[in-house]
């Protein structure tokens, strides 16, 4: 699927990457210090090149633009969002044992130190220098909530989590706290930086939150159903197909789910037979429709609106509901 207004998305992605680079270059105390954080930027440069629609880059700018035209401060806040994402992603990569090539030769502790020095140090330092107090509070709240989502994500799904008796509820809560809250953070930073009023802030939060959840669901369904997937299963992650399959129950499903890695092919076939893929798609469509409804209520210049729609199409269920 082509990105509408791809040049705009690419130009913005490059400008935000440059802003992130500047933040690190200016803040570090020596070249040696910079060298500890450059792999993070190298991962960012690769990802931005592959995916100019990256929400950490585009959402803060779209949110800012829904209030007023972009300026240097908007780019700087987007640069902070990109750094936050790269730090969170590095942490996630270590947790999932999926360390990208740019970190080659570094120990897990080095990667974690670099990541935490960004999201526990540099991000707050720069926001304070910008005197962006609302944004500072937003980052603190979001990281705290996202850490709960990370706990849920890393806890084997067979373990008890008494507050959420249903696996589906538990999974959707995790998706909301991880990807949803992360996207909401990026949008809220852009919007508060532009001085958004409550109404506008609420709409942009709603768009980003649901976009994030829909994207997480789509990615998790791909991991379960596609033969090339299975990483989440290897890592013991709870995903929507597992939750819905468990809810459907019956036959040998419950015992096969207890040893999922061994029975994955049978479970995939069983899930297809029971229409779990279509059910998952129905849930994705709910979040997609919520995001779409919020986006329709936002005031945005036409090219930026195109970029927002392209993000929604790429992240969530793509072309089947392209017109919905």
């Amino acid at each position, binding site marked *: *699927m082509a990105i509408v207004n791809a040049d705009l998305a690419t130009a913005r992605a490059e400008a935000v990457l440059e802003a992130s680079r500047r933040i690190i270059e200016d803040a570090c105390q020596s070249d040696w210090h910079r060298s500890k954080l450059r792999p993070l930027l190298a991962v960012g440069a690769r990802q931005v090149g592959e995916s100019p*629609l990256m*929400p950490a880059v585009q959402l803060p700018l779209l949110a800012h633009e829904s209030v007023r035209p972009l300026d240097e401060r908007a780019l700087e806040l987007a640069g902070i969002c990109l750094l936050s994402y*790269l730090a969170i992603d590095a942490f996630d990569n270590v947790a999932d044992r999926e360390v990208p090539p740019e970190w080659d030769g570094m120990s897990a502790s080095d990667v974690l130190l670099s990541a935490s020095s960004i999201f526990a140090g540099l991000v707050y330092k720069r926001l304070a220098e910008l005197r962006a107090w609302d944004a500072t509070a937003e980052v603190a709240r979001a990281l705290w909530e996202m850490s709960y989502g990370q706990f849920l994500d890393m806890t084997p799904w067979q373990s008890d989590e008494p507050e959420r008796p249903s696996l589906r509820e538990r999974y959707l809560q995790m998706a909301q706290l991880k990807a949803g809250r992360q996207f909401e953070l990026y949008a809220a930073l852009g919007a508060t930086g532009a001085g958004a009023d409550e109404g506008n802030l609420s709409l942009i939060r709603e768009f980003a939150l649901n976009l994030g959840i829909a994207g997480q669901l789509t990615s998790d369904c791909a991991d379960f159903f596609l033969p090339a997937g299975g990483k989440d299963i290897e890592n013991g992650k709870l995903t929507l197909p597992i939750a*819905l399959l468990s809810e459907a129950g019956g036959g040998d499903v419950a015992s096969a789910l207890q040893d999922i890695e061994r029975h994955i092919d049978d479970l995939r076939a069983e899930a297809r037979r029971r229409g779990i893929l*279509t059910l998952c798609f129905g*849930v994705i*469509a709910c979040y997609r*429709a919520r995001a779409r409804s919020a986006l329709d209520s936002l005031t945005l210049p036409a090219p930026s609106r195109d970029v927002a729609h392209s993000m929604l199409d790429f992240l969530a269920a793509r072309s089947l*509901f392209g017109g919905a």
Partner: protein
Amino acid sequence: MQQTSIREDVILQFVSRALSDEGFRASLADDPEAAQKSLSLSLTDAELQLLDEFGRLLQQHGPEALEELIMQELQQPGERGG
């Protein structure tokens, strides 16, 4: 004013019924409003719109072909989560 809330449970109930009940699928084509009412749910405008969309997809493709289309969708390269 339009009601915009959308509940996952409603969509799941609708899709489950549409997948398992051929008569329900047929009634979606003949009289979608009556078919939706037969779910005994009070639906918001946004839910009705989404169910219409889903009903059309199921009518157009049938359950098996729709699954294949969703599989094709999943195979398209998407963006990273961040």
